């Protein structure tokens, strides 16, 4: 396509406060269609808050955020338009416990996209196969392991056919032996050309799929660079300190 360089997400001079606490300080970030971004940084650095601003689970106080050409304002209609195009995966999975896996996946396509039930179920089964758990479709989330739940959560987001996927520390709540099954799904997604923003501490994942690694600390973007450059030649002292800690050994 001619305009693949056109940013699908534009974040310009964004500030946000939680009462007195300045969580985001003049953040600028532009993401092109098909780009894979990994956001890293110590806890409390504002990385989760930043991606939650992209689908307006949090409202920014200053600056401008536009997603797929739609600027995020108080306008609820526009917010819903953006949310339809942006899938999100949470640290705590947040599956709906009173619905089966299949119902979790078909809920939004049926109620938001107004798809017929059969069509939504066919799509859901396709994505459940893709995350390799079609056989769990009629179970309830509480009957699944953490890794399985997170894969369902990814399938649920994909069922809306989003243009962008946001991952908010998707593996942080998982037991170590389940991290790989979730990362594998994410890698597959990245190779299919999905625009992705992942907040994660999985530096192996960043190395393998990220086009850019964004390092945040104390509400600021300290450094952004392609992974090879980021890991081998970090510019800032803060990045070096963080990498030294996270890549110890």
């Amino acid at each position, binding site marked *: 396509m001619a305009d693949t360089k056109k940013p699908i997400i534009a974040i310009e001079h964004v500030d946000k406060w939680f009462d007195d606490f300045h969580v985001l300080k003049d953040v600028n970030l532009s993401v092109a269609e098909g780009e894979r971004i990994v956001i890293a940084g110590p806890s409390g650095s504002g990385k989760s808050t930043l991606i939650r601003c992209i689908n307006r689970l949090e409202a920014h106080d200053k600056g401008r955020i536009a997603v797929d050409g739609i600027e995020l304002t108080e306008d609820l209609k526009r917010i819903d338009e953006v949310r339809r195009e942006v899938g999100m995966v*949470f640290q705590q999975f947040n599956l709906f416990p009173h619905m089966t896996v299949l119902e979790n996946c078909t*809920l939004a396509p049926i109620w938001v996209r107004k798809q017929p039930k059969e069509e939504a179920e066919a799509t859901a089964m396709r994505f459940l196969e893709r995350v390799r758990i079609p056989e769990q479709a009629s179970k309830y989330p509480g009957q699944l392991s953490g890794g399985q739940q997170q894969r369902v959560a990814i399938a649920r987001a994909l069922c809306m056919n989003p243009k962008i996927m946001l991952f908010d520390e998707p593996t942080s709540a998982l037991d170590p032996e389940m991290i790989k099954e979730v990362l594998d799904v994410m890698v597959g997604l990245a190779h299919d050309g999905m625009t992705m923003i992942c907040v994660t501490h999985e530096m192996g994942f960043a190395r393998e799929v990220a086009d850019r690694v964004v390092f945040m600390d104390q509400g600021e973007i300290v450094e952004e660079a392609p992974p090879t450059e980021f890991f081998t030649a970090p510019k800032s002292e803060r990045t070096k300190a963080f990498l030294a800690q996270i890549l110890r050994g």
Partner: protein
Amino acid sequence: MTVNAAVKWLKRNLFSSWWNGALTLLVLYIVWSAIPPFLDWAIVHAVWSGEGREACLGPGKGACWPFIFANLDQFAYGRYPAELRWRVDLAFLLGLAGLVPMLIPRVPAKLWNLGYLVVAWPMIAIVLIAGDRPGLVGVDTDLWGGLLVTLIVAITGIVASFPLGILLALGRRSEMPVIRTLSIVFIEFWRGVPLVTVLFMASVMLPLFLPQGVHLDNLLRCLVGVALFSSAYMAEVVRGGLQAVPRGQYEAARALGLSYWQTMGLIVLPQALRSVIPGIVNTFIGLFKDTTLVLIVGLFDFLGQVRIQLSDMHWSTPQGAATGYVFAALVYWVFCFGMSRYSVFMEKRLNAGQIR
């Protein structure tokens, strides 16, 4: 062998220490001194048949059941004209026809069923019972009484307070300041006044404020008062349930593009209400029993009707009052225990499907 097992069971469960043993004996003594005399009064020495007070008079006689049997119609309908009582029966049967399939989970078409119960049936029932339509003989609400009034007040309170309470609970948690403030003011006002005051206001004060010529029926005014009063309680029960739903549920639903009402209706409320079933049923049971307070504004509900029949000279006996009140208690208990058992059944059923 079995005797041995029984002794072991006794020792382990009733006499495991001298303190437990003493408690067991004390409880046995209390049961022994309360139950046999009551059974003796209610069954052994009770009068079971007869006509009029003479049958129940005499030394050593217990409960006067003929008084109950002879007045069953009054207890059920009050002064509702005898030749028109079939209309009440019909309304009641039509309600049962909607309620029974509603309560059985296997029966399909719950949404239509609910629509019938909450919208269609009340209108049919009102027309049938009040009869204020051409071709039907009208029956003034002054003549309504007994269980009829109790059920009307309780059902109206339950049917109205449930949706109102949900809306108030959502309003109290709303991010819109006006709606939140109005909800809080409403809830705190109605929770802050006793139901007796509400009923007095409805029946004595309200007519003073109405414009000349506007007449609101006394029963109707009380119904509105009871509905608003109980919706405030319901709101707080539901709010407790809303708070128990993790924030992530709300966020996940919103992130999928679901609207506020879809999020609440499909995700948050189903989980919230499920977790407060005991509280909801508790409120319903409380409401059912509170309906007896309409007595003080001149409406004769079931308990009021029992009291009226007690003052009937034809049945005036020393055991009459006790018999009447025991019977009244039994009837209330059957209704409340029924609600309680059904809620236990629903909880078990809902918990069986999913493990958190």
